[in-house]
């Protein structure tokens, strides 16, 4: 039961969806649409369980006085405050949007912008022409970095066209080749999942 039922579920729903792609009959199409809608409903729970886990992990951290447990209190308070603001005032509530605008936006945006600094130090310390291949990478990178911003156009008016050529010719070719490889890999993975050969996503795959 524990291993057969999941295989039946994955095979049954999977192959129905595969076949329904090719059969335009109304009953089949409606059923497939219903399954899709269920899927989206279930996916919502994936997020709920994520939030549930955050609460659980941080409660445990506080209970067992693990390292930095004090911060977990801050985290949980923020979570509760945000949820209270949202569920009492609604997603249009002033306080909820106030926190979104003045806490979530600046923190999210700043976190990402830290990368500007890391990219700079990587450029200085890690980005080296150690081999012919790396040299090629380097030259392309420098051309794109200069030619794609206004300073490149200012230096030489043909710069943007040169960069566009790099993007549409060698870049497109390599990206497409890589894409084909990835697509094949994903199809083979999908097939194994549907056939129940690949079970690692269920955890281990053995009973």
């Amino acid at each position, binding site marked *: 039961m524990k291993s057969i039922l999941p295989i039946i579920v994955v095979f049954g729903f999977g192959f129905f969806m595969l076949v329904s792609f*090719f059969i335009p009959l*109304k009953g089949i199409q409606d059923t497939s649409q219903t399954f899709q809608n269920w899927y989206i409903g279930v996916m919502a729970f994936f997020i709920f369980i994520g939030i549930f*886990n955050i609460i659980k992990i941080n409660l445990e951290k506080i209970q067992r006085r693990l390292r930095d447990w004090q911060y977990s209190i801050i985290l949980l308070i923020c979570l509760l405050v945000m949820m209270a603001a949202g569920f009492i005032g609604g997603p249009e509530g002033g306080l909820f949007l106030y926190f979104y605008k003045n806490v979530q936006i600046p923190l999210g945006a700043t976190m990402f912008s830290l990368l500007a600094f890391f990219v700079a130090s*990587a450029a200085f310390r890690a980005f080296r022409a150690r081999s012919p291949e790396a040299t090629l990478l380097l030259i392309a990178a420098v051309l794109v970095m200069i030619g794609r911003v206004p300073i490149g156009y200012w230096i030489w008016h043909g710069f943007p066209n040169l960069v566009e050529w790099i993007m549409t010719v060698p870049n497109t070719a390599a990206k497409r080749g*890589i894409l084909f490889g990835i697509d094949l*890999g994903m*199809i083979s993975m999908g097939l194994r999942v549907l056939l129940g*050969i*690949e079970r690692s*996503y269920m955890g281990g795959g053995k009973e």
Partner: protein
Amino acid sequence: MFLILLILVQGISLDVYDTPNDDGSSITLSWSSDTLISSYQILRSIFPEHDFKEIARVESGKTTYVDTAVKAGTKYYYRIKGAGLDTVFFSNTAGPVRPIAQIFNLGRLNIAVCMIILFAVILFYISRARKGEKLYIRKIPALTAVEEAIGRATEMGKPVLFVPGIMDIDNPQTIAAMSILARVAEKTAEYGTPLYVPTSKAMAMSMAQQVVKESATKVGRPDWFNADNIRYLTDDQFGYVSAVDGMMVREKPATNLYLGCFYAESLILAETGHYTGAIQIAGTAMPDQLPFFVAACDYTLLGEELYAASAYLSQEPIQIGSLKGQDFGKLIFILVIVIGVITRLLGNQYFYNLFKTTR
């Protein structure tokens, strides 16, 4: 009278047909007009001469309409009334047309053929591998490095950090990462080296826990397994990356493995790891992220090499079989490209048109 008749015929020319490859629930109308028309009224009847009723209004600029309020098997006639500047234009009466339900969508035949060929090739090689046939796979240099790097962490008495990407377990890269994690967990359990696996998805956490637990049991070290080392941090990308960063700075792992599906966090992880002096091995099939891994890590599995690595490490017949199947798929793709280019060069469009997927 004569004038009106002329307009009636020449104003709008209408063509209707049963929408191909559907369940018989729609009829497609397409029309053309060389006069200025501000809006169209679409009229329908089940009689050729009378009883035409408006079913829809369409603004100018549009030249097609799909009528979905039809019954399969019934005959329909259509007319269009177009409002011009000060005249009303009529189209010819088009029809009869009868929507019919199709059992197989012929417009998707090429997709079916492609799918069947790829499935067949992959299954063929999997079955060969399962029968115990030894299938050759070239060595992937970055892999030897993984084992060395784990050894190095052990010597230094420091933990190993394994980041399985930030996507959920419905992402194949995460799954490939998990089979590499199984091998990494075996090695670390054997050496008794701590292994941290922070995840960004709750399901990825439970999966990683099961995988690591099983590996530990497999090498006879169930006591080594510590569920607390495999933690779900947060779904939020930046919350996650900053937490992992904090972890690197605090725990100073000697070996960082980034295998799976990565987005913008790739560089921030690799750069912080570089800063803490760890040996770093990365692998992802995300083309956007490869350059940073190449730039800042010691070894990188490029794209599909991630899947190849998982097959190579496990020596599992299924994985090796699929890899060989995919290799064959690549040969087919190359062949198809060559044929496509040549036929087009010879002025033949037939082969080119076989690959059309949208009407």
